[in-house]
């Protein structure tokens, strides 16, 4: 069964813009991205919307639907009632380029600042061996599709532009945790996490975990464990002493 949906879409650019109302046909089983494509095809050929895979795997189509950061291609129209007004806006933590497209380069800059994977030397036969139970934890974080919905929702930067310089955001703090837990990595990342990437700014309110389309438990499995590791390093007198006299390896 098809019906006419009431859509409100943010249109404009950095100079200004606002919400515009449209009525668009919806067929059974469609997602919000389908409706935007139909809008593009029938009424607004110049509507800018970024997308790629339509399968929740490329992380391109991030936007906000009824105020909640979501993937356009994974949000089914069936989750709304037929008479509901559905509001679609660009991500609101990043600068807008045009319509639903934002400039997410903040995230690439942060990614570049994370010290790279630094594995220990290869074994004599030239291979890197690790046990499955040792890589299991960081593997969860590898599911990330870099949609940056978590970066967008995190109030540390969403509500405070000035924090952007000192806070890497959940996705990249998770990357630090991933490397700190990695069985082959040799760098110690606790100080960097706290001092340069703002782990202490996170107040574990879990919005990143709430919006992650991959269902990664960012707060429980990456951020809080990383905070605990930082406590080991920075706030516990006994481990500080232990480290100074050269004991206590993980």
């Amino acid at each position, binding site marked *: 069964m098809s019906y006419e949906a009431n859509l409100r879409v943010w249109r404009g650019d950095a100079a200004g813009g606002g919400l515009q109302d449209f009525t668009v046909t919806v067929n059974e089983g469609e997602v919000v991205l389908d409706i935007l494509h139909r809008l593009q095809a029938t009424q607004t050929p110049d509507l800018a919307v970024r997308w790629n895979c339509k399968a929740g795997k490329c992380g391109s189509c991030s936007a906000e639907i009824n105020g909640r950061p979501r993937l356009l291609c994974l949000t089914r129209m069936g989750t709304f009632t037929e008479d509901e007004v559905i509001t679609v806006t660009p991500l609101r933590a990043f600068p807008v380029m045009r319509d639903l497209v934002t400039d997410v380069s903040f995230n690439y800059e942060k990614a570049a600042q994370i010290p790279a994977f630094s594995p220990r030397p290869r074994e004599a036969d030239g291979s890197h061996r690790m046990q499955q139970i040792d890589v299991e934890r960081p593997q969860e974080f590898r599911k990330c599709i870099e949609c940056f919905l978590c970066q967008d929702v995190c109030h540390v930067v969403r509500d405070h532009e000035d*924090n952007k310089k000192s806070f890497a955001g959940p996705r990249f703090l998770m990357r630090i945790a991933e490397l700190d837990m990695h069985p082959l990595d040799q760098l110690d990342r606790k100080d960097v996490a706290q001092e340069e990437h703002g782990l202490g700014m996170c107040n574990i309110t879990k919005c990143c975990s709430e919006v992650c389309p991959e269902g990664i438990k960012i707060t429980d499995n990456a951020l809080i464990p990383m905070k605990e590791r930082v406590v080991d390093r920075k706030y516990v007198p006994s481990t500080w002493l232990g480290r100074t006299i050269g004991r206590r390896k993980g």
Partner: protein
Amino acid sequence: MTTVAPSGTGAPGRARLDVRTLRTDRWWLQPLLTVLALVAFIVYSTVRAFENANYYAEPYISPFYAPCITTQCEGSTFPELFSGPAFISPALYILIVPLGFRLTCYYYRKAYYRSFWMSPPACAVAEPHGSYTGETRFPLIFQNLHRYFFYAGLVFNVFLTYEALMSFRNEDGEWFHMGLGTVILLTNATLLWLYSLSCHSCRHVVGGRLKHFSKHPVRYKAWTAVSRLNTSHMKYAWISLVFVAFTDFYVRLLATGAFDDPRFF
């Protein structure tokens, strides 16, 4: 409510929209319920901690007063360590442990940052503060001491378990008896164990801090078990909170004579 901070979603370059949030669901409900529940608990426990009476009904002691460590204590469930002035409720000496433990708990932090401090009130709803430093400065940097409260909390759990075992006595102090109160005290102690063992700091110290689980099979097992409990930490936080208050209330009913403890044997 309709303004946006020029430093936040209203910052230059971002898509202009003069609303705090476009969320259409009842995002305010959860913070509201959290405030109501926590305020109810704080009021009740404060009144009870200062009441300095009706916390002991042979053989049961209220968890708000256990371990009872002064000579002022009713009953004698625990060694009396010192004598304080009579007007100071014995609950006040020990309050710091459960209070500090829950106050620095990662789950409660989330709950009160969101509901009391509105930082943020709900996801993608602008917070009302102009600037934000998170847990990087005094006093919130002290949240990092959570694990010490966790250790102290474990000691308290031992005491409360001991008190629960002491309640397998009758009113004359004879062993191998049991009443409804015994079940309540035991349940309370069990819930507190579940709350403590599902703690994020617990998860870290049993194994989370390791880089190579494969070198520590026993700790890996412990970590796996705590991780499983940890996914329900929020649930245990609430259930144990409500049950502590209920246990205290039950003891109060007995102590005031409003109710008679059904004895099983």
